[in-house]
């Protein structure tokens, strides 16, 4: 044997290129529409073209008579096989049928379903269905909707209130009793109060892969396999089983390659229930794949929340109190997590500041629009936006540097864990350090001078900054109806290779790489010897899914714990084999040996082989090397950051152009900085998109005007400057990895810092706030009409 073996590098913390990529860059990956099952039929949905109406007649005869059409179902017929869809929040909710039975409540709501031999015939047949409606007034304007006008959408929900009013913050008891003493005192002591109505507009998540499902019920076995472009196959399995009268053991849910989710693929949708139920009824495999035009109406939207904010402060910049009245437009129905998303806005209203008194109230309202649900950030960007905009306005009012104002009010490092007025317990943080690094990287002083010089030349250049803190690593089971743990299994195979499973089913996050890095380090084996499996409930025993920036913090920890259990057992086998004490063993370079004596050890594969043919079997041990772990975090994690931007507005046209974006993020320990940077970039892109170009628009009839990429803009490469990233590292004590989560971070700081820059650019016109997005015409009006 060679005396020198190559040293395997430690991989955690390294910029390891992704193991997922070879299949993806060669077109060899399988997304749901790439999967075929012999005999499968295609679904197409006939969708409502009115926003609110009573179905008076559906004529399916022409469709049913078409060559290649297998079956046609109306809403009433679907209702016989698909019960009303369940939601995942404890709020009262109206019945929601997968296919409308009598009343349609948003344009795009399904009213009938076609099953046909291919997608072309299915589309033709859906078009051949004729539906008549008695039109009802469309409820479009949020604040008008709250008065019950022009119509009440669900009869048991007076004034269209899905959630009438939930109070939170200082003086609010667990029983929602309200004591106003502290908040009144704060505002009575105020020397300055900032008050502003702010709109956090509706967005379309638009993963480039739309949704899709393939359901295959096998009557002979009585089992269902369902492939879906989902973020959480285990939740899908639970729901499909329950809705079809099957046991969870009889349903196999598979998330194949998933082409982006951004929160919109958490929900279990009507199309999934319908495909499964029809497959079970007809005994044939059923596929449905969403068109982009459908996606704009049929996949949940994000944000759409109105905030009335009041910020009380002393003239020296000390913030005394914050009031925030939230009104969320949730669209026509509650989806899986719809009602819960704005509660995260409530939770994070404390932002990064030590605010003595906070009062937040939340109202959720039905309108005749596509339902909302999670969209990257899900509630936290809204909170960040409202509070940071108000802080920026306060800084302007006080003529203070926005960084100085923040510095004066930060929660201090020694105060962690910090219990907020909103009931969160921030795990760890050093906000000032993070901000200072951002200011340094941005050359804040020089940036201001640059802006001033540009302004002196008549250019409309502005700079803005924002802090954020978000709640990630969701979360303790008390905070999630699904349970808040994550699961992992680790098996050392007989040849010493490692197979691991994770319930955190990724859709671009790179878990096959990061989790592989962790196990390779944990066992001292090459990365190539580790395989990470995910996305198939028949392989991955249990799981919750990937959302809320939880896959590393919760899923990664479960993996680490499962690996630790197996390693402990493997050490016992190795100890027996090497006649050594298991506590003295080292796993390194593909070998297991007694510390200080690498040559004396055994190869990793030899120890593994012994564990499977244990002759003799060490006392007290079972054969084999396989174990699993559930990790239940004691708390969420609270990553944070500081974003700074510079923006120029064309004086003649109002067109904004982003010149610089500097971000410093703190997500605790990073497993793979390359992947983390990618996550930040992507989040920034969506945040910048929201701030500058994205907005779902409905007309007064409730018709979606931005129904395609011809009218709904998402960012292109030309819309961005090169982002400048950096990191501070404040590990979390919540999990042994010290990792906080990073998937959504970019969407938080970017929106308020860009709007702040726009306001700064237009300060000469006296504007104090501009609602997103920064539509050129809106900015032009400020410049040329002095109106906001």
């Amino acid at each position: 044997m060679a005396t020198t073996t190559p040293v395997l590098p430690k991989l955690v913390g390294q910029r390891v290129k992704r193991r997922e990529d070879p299949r993806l860059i060669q077109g060899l990956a399988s997304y749901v529409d790439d999967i075929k099952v012999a005999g499968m039929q295609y679904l197409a949905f006939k969708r409502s073209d009115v926003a609110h109406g009573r179905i008076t007649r559906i004529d399916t005869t022409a469709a049913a008579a078409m060559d290649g059409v297998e079956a046609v179902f109306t809403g009433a017929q679907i209702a016989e096989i698909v019960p009303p869809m369940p939601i995942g929040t404890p709020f009262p909710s109206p019945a929601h049928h997968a296919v409308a039975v009598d009343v349609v409540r948003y344009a795009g709501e399904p009213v009938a379903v076609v099953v046909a031999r291919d997608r072309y015939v299915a589309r033709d047949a859906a078009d051949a269905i004729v539906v008549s409606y008695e039109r009802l007034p469309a409820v479009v304007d949020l604040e008008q909707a709250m008065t019950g006008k022009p119509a009440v959408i669900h009869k048991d929900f007076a004034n269209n209130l899905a959630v009438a009013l939930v109070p939170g913050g200082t003086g609010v008891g667990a029983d929602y009793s309200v004591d106003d003493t502290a908040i009144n005192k704060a505002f009575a002591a105020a020397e300055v109060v900032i008050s502003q109505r702010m709109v956090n507009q509706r967005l379309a998540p638009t993963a480039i892969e739309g949704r899709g499902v393939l359901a295959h019920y096998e009557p002979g076995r009585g089992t269902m396999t369902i492939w879906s472009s989902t973020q959480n196959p285990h939740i899908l399995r639970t729901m499909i089983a329950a809705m079809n009268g099957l046991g969870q053991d009889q349903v196999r849910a598979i998330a194949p390659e998933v082409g982006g989710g951004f929160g919109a693929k958490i929900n279990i949708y009507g199309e999934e229930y319908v495909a499964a139920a029809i497959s079970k009824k007809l005994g044939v495999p059923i596929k449905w794949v969403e068109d982009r035009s459908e996606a704009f109406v049929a996949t949940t939207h994000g944000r759409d929340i109105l905030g009335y904010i009041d910020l009380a402060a002393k003239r020296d910049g000390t913030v005394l109190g914050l009031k925030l009245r939230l009104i969320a437009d949730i669209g026509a129905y509650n989806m899986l997590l719809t009602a819960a998303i704005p509660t995260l806005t409530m939770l994070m209203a404390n932002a990064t500041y030590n605010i003595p008194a906070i009062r937040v109230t939340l109202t959720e309202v039905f309108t005749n629009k596509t339902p909302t649900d999670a969209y990257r950030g899900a509630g936290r960007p809204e909170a960040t936006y409202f509070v940071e905009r108000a802080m920026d306005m306060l800084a302007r009012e006080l003529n203070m540097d926005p960084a100085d104002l923040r510095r004066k009010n930060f929660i201090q490092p020694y105060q962690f864990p910090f219990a907020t007025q909103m009931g969160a317990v921030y795990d760890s943080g050093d906000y000032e350090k993070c901000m200072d690094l951002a200011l340094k990287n941005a050359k804040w002083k020089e940036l201001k001078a640059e802006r001033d010089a540009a302004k002196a030349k008549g250019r409309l250049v502005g700079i803005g900054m924002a802090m954020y803190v978000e709640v990630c690593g969701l979360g303790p089971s008390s905070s999630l109806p699904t349970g808040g743990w994550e699961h992992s299994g680790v098996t050392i195979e007989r040849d010493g290779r490692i197979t691991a499973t994770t319930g955190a089913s990724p859709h671009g996050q790179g878990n096959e790489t990061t989790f592989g890095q962790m196990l390779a380090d944990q066992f001292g084996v090459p990365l190539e010897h580790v395989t990470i499996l995910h996305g198939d409930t028949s392989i991955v025993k249990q799981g919750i899914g990937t959302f809320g920036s939880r896959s590393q913090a919760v899923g990664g920890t479960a993996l680490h714990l499962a690996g630790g259990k197996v390693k402990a057992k493997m050490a016992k086998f190795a100890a027996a084999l090497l006649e050594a004490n298991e506590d003295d063993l080292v796993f390194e370079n593909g070998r297991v040996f007694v510390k200080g004596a690498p040559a004396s050890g055994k190869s990793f594969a030899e120890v593994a082989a012994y564990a499977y043919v244990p002759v003799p079997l060490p006392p007290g041990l079972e054969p084999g090397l396989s174990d699993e772990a559930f990790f239940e975090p004691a708390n969420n994690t609270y990553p944070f950051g500081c974003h700074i931007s510079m923006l120029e507005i064309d004086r003649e046209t109002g067109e904004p152009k982003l010149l610089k974006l500097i971000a410093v993020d703190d997500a605790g320990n990073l497993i793979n900085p390359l992947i983390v940077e990618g996550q930040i970039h992507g989040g920034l892109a969506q945040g910048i998109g929201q701030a500058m170009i994205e907005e779902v628009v409905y007309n007064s009839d409730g018709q979606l005007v931005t129904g395609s990429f011809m009218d709904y803009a998402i960012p292109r490469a030309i819309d961005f400057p090169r982002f400048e990233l950096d990191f501070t590292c404040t590990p979390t004590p919540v999990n042994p990895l010290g990792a906080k989560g990073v998937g959504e971070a970019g969407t938080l700081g970017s929106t308020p810092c860009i709007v702040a820059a726009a306001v700064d650019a237009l300060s000469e016109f006296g504007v104090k706030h501009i609602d997103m997005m920064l539509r050129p015409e809106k900015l032009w009006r400020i410049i040329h009409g002095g109106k906001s």
Partner: protein
Amino acid sequence: MISTAFEYQRANSLDEAIKKLQETGGRGKLLAGGHSLVPLMKLRMSEPGILIDIARIPGLAGIREKDGKIEIFAATVHHDVASSALLAEKCPVVAETAGEIGDPQVRNRGTLGGSLAHSDPSADYPAVMLAVDAEIHLKGPKGWRIVKASDFFQDLFTVDLAADEIIGGVQFAAVKSAGYAKLHQRASGYAIVGVAAALDVKGGVITSARLGLTGAGSHATRMTNVEKALAGQPLSAKTIEAAAKIAGEGIKHVNADIHASEEYRRAMIPVFTKRALEKAMARS
């Protein structure tokens, strides 16, 4: 999305295509690059019964100089126009405009003839065709016919082109001092307002000017009031500034949508007129 079913035919000459158009009695639609038509068909906003593919008709694509004039054949794709060395040298505004259409893939497939025949109210090409005073060459059962660009664009998606006629190409005198400027609709990339300006300059004086405007109304139009204001004036920033101010005056109908109100669009006409003229001046 999937279009409705249609019958597909291919024509190998203009005459054959014309014959097929006649035979189909109005149900036939020409298909070249398809980048105006196919998206509409997929959304089922256009449901032609028969498509006649003219993309392979020999000699229907290309750019050349003939008798002192530039000729661009109808099936020439935008990319070839945008990257034409001939145009870059002799008439850069046309290449510049082609380069502003869509994105690289669209420019690799979309054709000049298709864009002109479709006449989207916010398409780029019509503006520049007006500015270079292009002659549009049409062939029908009775032979060739020439229509001035200023007569060709008539109304919303409506041009002077009979159901049995085909655009063969365009011809125009090269003009170097010309420019195109547009306000991009940020989702589609189409022009909210687009202005192409061409100046004939002699001894530092603008002898005549032509300006084409797209995006603002139902179809692209000339801005004759600006043209008149420029004619006979010395070519200078001051002249441009003054003339651009009246751009758009007198236009009765101006479009409005979520991307730009009528008021904003109207305000953008002088802005982009000035910018187009500045580009033209820089090239003089």
